[in-house]
């Protein structure tokens, strides 16, 4: 009898599963999880950082809500927002009104901009019976000040989740939940390292899908999917192409259509790092498991929070971090890629561009809306950018 040898998972199978999960706007996977977990609840998380372990420890599944992409037609959502605001809140309202978000029992709005902050109020109006949480971040990063503030915020949120039919977790339950999120963080870092070392194995359009798939999965299941993808990509036999290595910066909230990411790749830009699906990589280190769990989460954010336009800073450190990332990832250029009307990203851009200029790093910029369908101009601009690096840098 032949012995069955276990090889790497088939890449197309992993991608098919990731694609189905990433496109699960109706949250069928979440409904299935709730059915399998009697009493389990689901907490929608708008873009930005939120420690999913706090929700998990209370019996809630954190579910990343990142808008409707190019699959939701906005009809009623426009009535809730001014025309000069970004697209994500409109499609999210549309999804809420259309029943897409019914499996959610609550929603948390991290403080990344005024629009997201105010969404907690809109959600309360739409669903007065459900939980609505505004999650504020400290602007003082001194552990004695900002650290205490953040710990109090986490305690407040934990209490709200526990009171709303969940359970009050003890330290061991919190540690178990933190460990699960650490697995996810570790798997995301492994994927990131592979992209930096052998970017031709991991197209950004695939990395985007497998990370986004985690929006509707428990952390440990998502970590397993990410590990499967890494093994499959390593065994794919893909060969390097005559492309330029770039960082993609500015897409930390409203996500670009996948067609835009493919267009950048077709334009000769291989993305070695980005801030897509930012919530999964907002902490650049694992949260320690010993000691005070909530205090550890707060301290990890203060000390190892990823630089982002959605995080307060007053010392120019974001620009320095961008240059450092470009150096460590051996990026030959930076593509600033932000949603239209994204205040944090667009207000930051001039200082980040200046830092690139001073460091001699070529850069270009494009803007998008989550349902953009035409990429010809992006292709031309990004293609000319990659040409200029290939020919002259």
């Amino acid at each position, binding site marked *: 009898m032949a012995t069955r040898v276990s090889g790497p998972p088939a890449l197309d199978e992993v991608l098919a599963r990731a694609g189905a999960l990433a496109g699960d706007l109706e949250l069928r996977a979440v409904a299935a999880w709730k059915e399998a977990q009697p009493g389990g609840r689901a907490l929608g998380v708008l873009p930005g950082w939120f420690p999913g372990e706090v929700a998990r420890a209370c019996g809630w599944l954190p579910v990343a809500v990142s808008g409707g992409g190019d699959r939701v037609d906005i009809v009623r959502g426009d009535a809730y927002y001014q025309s000069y605001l970004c697209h994500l809140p409109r499609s999210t309202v549309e999804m809420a009104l259309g029943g897409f978000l019914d499996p959610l029992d609550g929603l948390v709005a991290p403080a990344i901009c005024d629009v997201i902050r105010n969404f907690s109020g809109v959600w309360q109006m739409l669903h007065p019976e459900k939980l609505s949480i505004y999650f504020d971040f400290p602007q003082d990063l001194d552990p004695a000040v900002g650290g205490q503030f953040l710990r109090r915020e986490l305690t407040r949120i934990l209490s709200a989740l526990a009171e709303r039919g969940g359970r009050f977790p003890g330290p061991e339950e919190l540690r178990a939940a933190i460990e699960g999120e650490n697995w996810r963080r570790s798997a995301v870092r492994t994927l990131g390292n592979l992209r930096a070392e052998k970017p031709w194995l991991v197209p950004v359009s695939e990395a985007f899908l497998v990370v986004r798939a985690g929006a509707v999965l428990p952390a440990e299941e998502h970590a397993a999917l990410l590990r499967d993808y890494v093994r499959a990509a390593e065994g794919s036999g893909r060969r390097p192409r005559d492309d330029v290595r770039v960082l993609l910066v500015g897409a930390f909230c409203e996500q670009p259509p996948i067609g835009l990411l493919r267009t950048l790749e077709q*334009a*000769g830009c291989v993305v070695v790092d980005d801030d897509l699906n930012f919530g999964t990589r907002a902490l650049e280190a694992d949260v320690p498991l010993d000691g005070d769990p909530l205090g550890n989460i707060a301290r990890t954010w203060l000390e190892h929070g990823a630089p982002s336009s959605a995080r307060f800073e007053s010392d120019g450190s974001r620009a320095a971090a961008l240059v450092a990332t470009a150096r460590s990832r051996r990026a030959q250029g930076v593509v600033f890629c932000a949603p239209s009307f994204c205040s944090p990203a667009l207000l930051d851009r001039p200082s980040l561009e200046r830092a690139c200029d001073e460091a001699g790093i070529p850069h270009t910029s494009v803007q998008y809306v989550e349902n953009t369908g035409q990429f*010809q101009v992006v292709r*031309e601009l990004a*293609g*000319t950018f990659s*040409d*200029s690096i*290939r*020919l002259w840098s």
Partner: protein
Amino acid sequence: MSPCRRLRTAGVDLGSSAVKVAVVETRGNGEPLLLASEVERIRKRDPRAVADALFRSTCAAAETEPEALDYVATTGEAQGLPFETGHFFGMTTHARGGLFLVPEAAAVLDVGALHARAVAVAPDGRVLRTRMTGQCASGSGQFLENIARYLGVALEDVGPLSLRARKPEPVSGICAVLAETDVINMVSRGIETADILRGIHESIARRLAQLLRSLEAGSPVVITGGLAADEGLAAALAERLAADGAKTGVRTHPLSDRAGAIGAAIWGAVRRGRMDGVPSCEAVA
């Protein structure tokens, strides 16, 4: 002097209405020499099949076996053709091709079937700055082709007719759809065909002048792409720039429609040199 080598390369530019192919040789003095170039309109055929056939016929005209080429560079929509070595994007290739045709050019204005693109170019062909029209078709060749069809005028007659206009009729400068409605109204009002065409040219020229202004383009500007052969458009653009107070000369070249393919072939030689670690003579020059 740095060592360099002689390279024979091809450029294939697949546009939305025509295919252009060029074969170039870079020699010891660093000057690229155009061995052959051809253009073929697609006319509802399979564009890739047209590109394949034209590539082979241009190689034959240059007395070169396709397999003997050092680099086959595609541009435009030709990415992924089976004989491609690498791909360069339109603004990169038109900049270099425009400079090859008009060596004193400081900017290139590529007016194709669907887009207009302005590129400020350094003396060595490097792209300095770029501007593109958006998704609107009213500054493009396809728009002009539609108008010519409505008017029953052959494309090659559009420019000479426009130059004979006595009283140009203004059309909408904002939208191709509105402009086409304008034209239908003009025909029914009995406006002279030459005056209609001149009005269209002036409308396009306004958009192109705006593009050049936003680019802060130097002088002269060389027009490339399918509309470069339209002398009526070149005249309207020169007049528009002068009226705006810009001291920008406008040039065209008989081979302007092939600039993308020529530029691709030249950059292919540079890229081949960089990939092999031995610069082409073009790169050294």
